[in-house]
């Protein structure tokens, strides 16, 4: 797993109970409720720790999710849009989070802006199906990716803060 801070944050995210995917009709609605409960708690925890770093919402069916994530580097806040689909095999397979505006800017990304996670993520997710949900995907997948990639992209001048772009 990642560093101490991530481990602690993850341990405070409520685990999910229902093992169902988007094809499971009623049970999927139950799973979605659990996803939202877990996400809400995680965001509340983040706000309390002064580290509110993302927002997510979904379409009515809960199959398409979109939102924003933020990364603070040297006192500047960088914002990115993100999106993902729930694959038919969820939760056995985790969704692929995409940040379309960074597509092509880093080697740690597949086409379409899908972030490339470390070797640790997939086995970790597999061991915790179905207890891990979208909040865990954020904490263990997107969070660490941003922490590694964004400073690197900034240092290379590949991304600039919006204020700097307008001036």
């Amino acid at each position, binding site marked *: *797993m*990642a560093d101490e801070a991530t481990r602690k944050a993850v*341990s*405070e*995210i*409520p*685990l*999910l*109970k229902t093992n169902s995917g*988007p*094809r499971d009709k009623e049970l999927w*609605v139950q799973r*979605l*409720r*659990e996803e*939202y*409960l*877990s*996400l*809400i*708690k995680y*965001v*509340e925890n983040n*706000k309390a720790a002064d580290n509110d770093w993302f*927002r*997510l*919402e*979904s379409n009515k*069916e*809960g*199959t398409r999710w979109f939102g924003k994530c933020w990364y603070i580097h040297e006192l500047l806040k960088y914002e990115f849009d993100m999106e993902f*689909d*729930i*694959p*038919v*095999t969820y939760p*056995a*397979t985790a969704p*692929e989070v995409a940040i379309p505006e960074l597509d092509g800017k880093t*080697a*740690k990304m597949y*086409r379409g802006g899908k972030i*490339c996670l470390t070797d*640790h993520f*997939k*086995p*970790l997710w*597999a*061991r*915790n*199906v179905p*207890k*891990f949900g979208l909040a865990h995907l954020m904490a263990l997948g997107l969070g660490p990716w941003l922490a590694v990639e964004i400073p690197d992209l900034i240092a290379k001048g590949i991304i600039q803060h919006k204020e700097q772009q307008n001036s």
Partner: protein
Amino acid sequence: MLWLWWEWEEWAVSLQKCSPDVALLLLFDYDKVELANMNRLFFQPHQAGLSKVEAAEHTLRSINPDVPFESHNYNITTMDNFTHFMNRISHGGLEEGKPVDLVLSCVDNFEARMAINTACNELGQVWMESGVSENAVSGHIQLIIPGETACFACAPPLVVAANIDEKTLKRDGVCAASLPTTMGVVAGLLVQNVLKFLLGFGTVSYYLGYNAMQDFFPSMAMKANPQCDDRHCRRQQDEYKKKEVERPKQEVVQEEEEVVHEDNEWGIELVSEVSEAELQDASGPVPDLPEGITVAYTIPEKDGASGETVEETDQSLEELMAQMRKM
């Protein structure tokens, strides 16, 4: 015959050449031809920008104009497309309305394989899965008969052991390597297995690995896991057992591979990011596999992460969505 590929078209070329036996091909892919593909695929630079299925159809037609094609340029793992995909497997056969004879998976990621596995388990569709490792020096083919053999979800992903120091291969910041030669070998093995399966000659391999560094070809057969996470796999297993009971007994000569139990040392690294305690927690039983094959990771028998679960609540989904939006 139904094909999915996101990376390797050698399969396609070999099969086209054997065409008297292949009457119809359905192709599924959601990628575009790029210059990066030119080291190994049968596309040409002037096709860059076209969808792979479109470009493939053009090229394959020129090799053999007698085989009809149906191609679909979409991602099969999304809800919208998956239903259509399942429909084509079950109704897109030589005679419209009948299922295809065989599905070949030549994709390059776990998620797509799981989606194909889900579809084939539900439909009882025989399929062959193939792959090449990220370091490009090993590969495998696998025949999956739902209910009879292990499905893709019955065990964690299998890995053909490379017997080399990973550090000599892995470079920081690079995701994957690609060797057209390894892919060519695996493509040949796959098509060979397909021909044996469809035409009924030789011994069809259930699992055949290829270790390019030592030229070692481990092979084995893995039985279905009665505790597989996929309920359709379990259902197919029940149906298979019923059919077996009703079948007249046959003398079957089977060569049993000598099973060598693997040492479970795979988690140890020079500088480990994972603590000893976590490693212990993360380790589960390693299935009995012959020499040269191991699993990518294990699932512990006890329940993984422990902690608080989501609270019980009467809030409806709509109320929760609204609550999230207000945050």
